[in-house]
């Protein structure tokens, strides 16, 4: 396997943006990510993006977003209708071929124009589930109930939310941050029993960009590249009623394949509070050893189709800054943690 590293990362602020379109949101983020490398998007060997046309409300919306990259002369480019973390996976695979040394990965999405809970229903079985239009919050809440009834406490959920908001205070791109009291959180009314509003993610619009480079090229472009030591993704059985919702078998397997061990910091893509605990447990992470979601995570800021790539970027950024030597970044897709990607990053 060829050594590939994250050499640059940038993200937009994430909040409902009723002013700019996706291209306008992406342009400054691309510029910010390219600047430290001294390269242009034209210098990249391969470009891959992650987004959802259903989110944008327009077929081939991802093609319009290419304007932001300035793809002339024509570039080698691909796209996944998924979170940008999977676009990064494709770019990583492409770099393994050995004929190119750099790749540009970007993700974008505006959740605010539509009803994101309803848009995500498009991911469900089109014959026997989607016609009922179950929304993303209801499905996550079903999983939360299974998890709570397996012997967990809603106090754990409050702890996750409080930690997320507190960590997000140090994140200029986060949407929700603050010092919140766990007891006060538990006093809030239930929203989608058993979940409270704060157990659910905010509606965020945003974009993120990661630059990958291989071998010596990575060392030229970055003082301390964040090396991808392992990357793997797995998917659970599609039918919700056939899955054990209290654990994430796909995360566990992806974590084993990616080589999760001795982790200093973890960025876990958990849009719902109980999901952070399920993912951490599935990866075998101990809070005493590992700092979890120092960015605040997806509970603080959840641009759909972007938040997973942001987890990789946030973990990589901290590795490059010397805040840790070994990190894990996780991304999820589909209802109730159906599909999961795990990436292990190292500074040396």
């Amino acid at each position, binding site marked *: 396997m060829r050594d590939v590293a994250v050499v640059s990362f940038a993200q937009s602020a994430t909040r409902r943006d009723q002013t700019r379109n996706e291209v306008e949101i992406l*342009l400054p983020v691309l510029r910010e990510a390219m600047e430290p490398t001294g390269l242009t998007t034209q210098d990249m060997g391969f470009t891959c993006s992650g987004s959802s046309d259903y989110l944008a409300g327009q077929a081939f919306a991802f093609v319009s977003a290419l*304007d932001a990259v300035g793809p002339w002369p024509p570039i080698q480019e691909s796209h996944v209708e998924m979170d940008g973390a999977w676009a990064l996976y494709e770019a990583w695979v492409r770099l393994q071929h050995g004929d190119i040394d750099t790749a540009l990965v970007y993700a974008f999405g505006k959740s605010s*124009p539509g009803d994101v809970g309803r848009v995500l229903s498009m991911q469900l079985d089109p014959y026997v589930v989607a016609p009922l239009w179950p929304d993303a919050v209801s499905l996550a809440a079903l999983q939360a109930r299974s998890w709570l009834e397996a012997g967990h406490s809603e106090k754990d959920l409050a702890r996750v939310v409080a930690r997320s908001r507190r960590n997000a205070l140090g994140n200029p791109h986060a949407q929700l941050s603050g010092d919140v009291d766990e007891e006060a959180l538990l006093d809030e009314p239930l929203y989608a029993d058993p979940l409270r509003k704060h157990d659910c993610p905010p509606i965020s619009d945003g974009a993120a960009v990661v630059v990958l480079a291989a071998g010596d090229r990575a060392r030229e472009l970055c003082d301390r590249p964040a090396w991808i030591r392992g990357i793997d993704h797995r998917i659970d059985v599609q039918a919700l009623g056939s899955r054990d919702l209290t654990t994430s078998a796909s995360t566990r397997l992806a974590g084993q394949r990616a080589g999760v061990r001795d982790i200093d910091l973890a960025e876990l893509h958990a849009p719902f509070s109980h999901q952070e605990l399920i993912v951490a447990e599935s990866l075998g992470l101990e809070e005493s050893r590992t700092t979890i979601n120092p960015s605040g995570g997806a509970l603080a800021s959840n641009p759909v189709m972007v938040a997973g790539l942001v987890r990789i970027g946030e973990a990589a950024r901290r590795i490059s800054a010397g805040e840790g030597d070994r990190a894990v970044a996780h991304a999820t897709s589909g209802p109730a943690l159906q599909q999961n990607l795990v990436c292990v990053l190292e500074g040396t």
Partner: protein
Amino acid sequence: MSDPVTGIITPIRLDYTYTPGTSPSAFLRGMKDGKILGRRCPSCGKVYVPPRGGCPMCGVEFAEEVQVSDSGTLVTFAVVNVNFANRVIDLPYVSGEVLFDGADTTSMVLVQGIAADEVRMGMRVTAHWLPREEWDFTFANIDYVEPTGEPDADYASYKEHV
């Protein structure tokens, strides 16, 4: 006993509050005022009509707003013999790509005021707008273009846009 089920119809409808973005909004506001507003790329200097946010060739944000003329050159066209959705029109009709003077991108506009078999590339045209009281935030305020009667433009002046 009925036949077994072999198919289902699953209608999908998703609703949005769509915002076109900053520079497209400026373009649409311009149309409401009877102006065609493009934006210039600070890197290559091209003027895009309508502007979508950044120069799609350079990947650079637009800055300068540029009003272009509502007269221009017909760079290419198609003679259409089939009606299209939502419009009833005399057939055949001519659908043209017009390079408005000052713009570096063409716009698709209906061509009227001339027999279909007399239309040619390079023909000089001008916009016929709907009555002012019907103007909205839309390019459709320009109902069609018609020939100005000027001599045809030189091929060299528009060949890049064909």
